[in-house]
């Protein structure tokens, strides 16, 4: 199997699960740093693959990214960089992953978690490529809980991976909290709204978040349905996971 390692906690856990599931000899990890990757993204990945005993390759996407920007420049003249340029990076990585998948005859395991899939903090045809969404039913705080459980006796997932603040590293200094509430806030909202069908008012009452914040998250969840319906199958570990057991319309105006 092929897994993209970002140096973050999600891909680290998927690599650990894949290694236990199929043996280290059947797992290939690949790091694909960009100009915005922190030095830790590769160093921490190296430490992880040595702990797991899996093959690790790296391919820089710097030149490919520059080529895309150059090719698109005439179309984008006068338009400032935005999410478009951010999304090109995971899409380059997705193409490399699928090339490896073809050449090695190995499935790609996609590494998105339930919090990201809920609010659409993921890139279609980018980091969403793959044959199976291994941790797509674990919200981010549960991803950490499972990693800490894995580390209960010896350090399988390097501490540096668990300690760094979550970042997509798609622009300089980017943090998940630039776009999203902290996961300690986001996850209870996702669980309440997706798994228990609670109303924003009920979530506010239960958790003490502002109505405005809860409504923003609910809006993100509703407008991401088109992404989720194109996602890899998710391994179900909660009473309501994304996928076959949760069927919502895409072209809809939700007013509840």
């Amino acid at each position, binding site marked *: 199997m092929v897994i993209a390692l970002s140096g973050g906690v999600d891909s680290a856990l998927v690599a650990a699960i894949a290694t236990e599931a199929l043996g280290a000899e059947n797992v290939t990890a690949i790091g694909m740093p960009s100009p915005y990757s922190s030095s830790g993204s590769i160093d921490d990945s190296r430490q992880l693959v040595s702990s797991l005993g899996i093959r690790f390759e790296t391919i820089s996407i710097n030149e490919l990214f520059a080529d895309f920007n150059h090719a698109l420049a005439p179309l984008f003249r006068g338009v400032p960089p935005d999410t478009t340029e951010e999304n090109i990076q995971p899409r380059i990585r997705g193409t490399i992953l699928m090339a490896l998948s073809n050449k090695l005859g190995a499935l790609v395991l996609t590494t998105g978690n339930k919090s990201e899939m809920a609010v659409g903090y993921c890139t279609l045809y980018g980091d969403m490529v793959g044959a199976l969404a291994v941790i797509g039913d674990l919200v981010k705080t549960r991803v950490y809980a499972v990693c800490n459980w894995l580390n209960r006796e010896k350090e399988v997932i390097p501490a540096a991976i668990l300690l760094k603040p979550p970042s997509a590293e798609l622009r300089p200094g980017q943090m998940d909290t630039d776009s999203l509430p902290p996961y300690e806030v986001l996850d209870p909202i996702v669980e309440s709204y997706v798994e228990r069908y609670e109303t924003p008012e009920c979530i506010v009452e239960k958790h003490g978040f502002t109505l405005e914040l809860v409504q923003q998250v609910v809006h993100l969840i509703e407008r991401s349905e088109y992404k989720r319906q194109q996602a890899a199958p998710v391994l*179900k570990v909660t009473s309501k*996971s994304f*996928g076959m*057991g949760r069927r919502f319309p895409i072209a809809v105006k939700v007013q509840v």
Partner: protein
Amino acid sequence: MKIALAQIDPTVGDFTGNLQKIVAFSRRAADSGARLTVFSELAICGYPPADLLEKPSFLARCQTAVDELRAATFDLPTAVLAGVALPAGGADGKPAFNAAVLLDRGNLLLEQHKCLLPFYDVFDEQRYFSPSGTQKVIDLDGTRLAITICEDAWNDKNFWPRRLYAVDPMEELMRQSPALHINLSSSPFWHGKRTVRREMLAAIARRDKIPVLMANQVGGNDSLVFDGSSLALDARGELIAQAASFEEDLMIVDPFNSSPVPLPEDDETEAAYRALVLGTRDYVR
């Protein structure tokens, strides 16, 4: 009476592989002195087969698989109870029954169909299956067995605040005075499910005052992961044995002569990890 709960990891559509497992587990159970070996819901064809059930060729293969199993186990001292889809062709237009067949020394003693067909969340059984019309208790060496399939045991009006079905097939079975309730399940894992299953079946054992045995599927099928955790509860609803979670197991119990065991502590974080490992392994295999 010793009964084996055979918790196997079948693959949907792999009749040859599934039958090999069923025969191998039956032989092991017979060697341990079991008079009956119970497999999970749709163990012969794997659960869930989804739209494969709309193919007549798939249902025909299910039927020949039952014949093959009968031939492969006729010389064993254990009877074999296993789930399989069988063609229906009734007035409701549904292609199949979700059935359990009881084979003993080459004879088909009982073909029981599932009555309650779940249709929520990941379940879509009313799309394919015709419900059972009657429930029949069967006698095996003087022990009267009530055989239900998964959801048939999930409609106790005292346990659930809101029932999903108007009928409870256990009521019809209890009027025939069974001594033992055997449930074939393919009940997928999710957070907290093992506790719910244990408490619900314990409530049924207490209500009916007979032991309950439940053989559950283990393994991953696409998005679903089945945890196994097959159960044996005595007539007071006390746990007498629980099979392994997230791996195959063969658990031999005497439901009438066993002492209660302490309830296992379900670590849901560990369970999530093991579920994802199993789901990944079986998806790729």
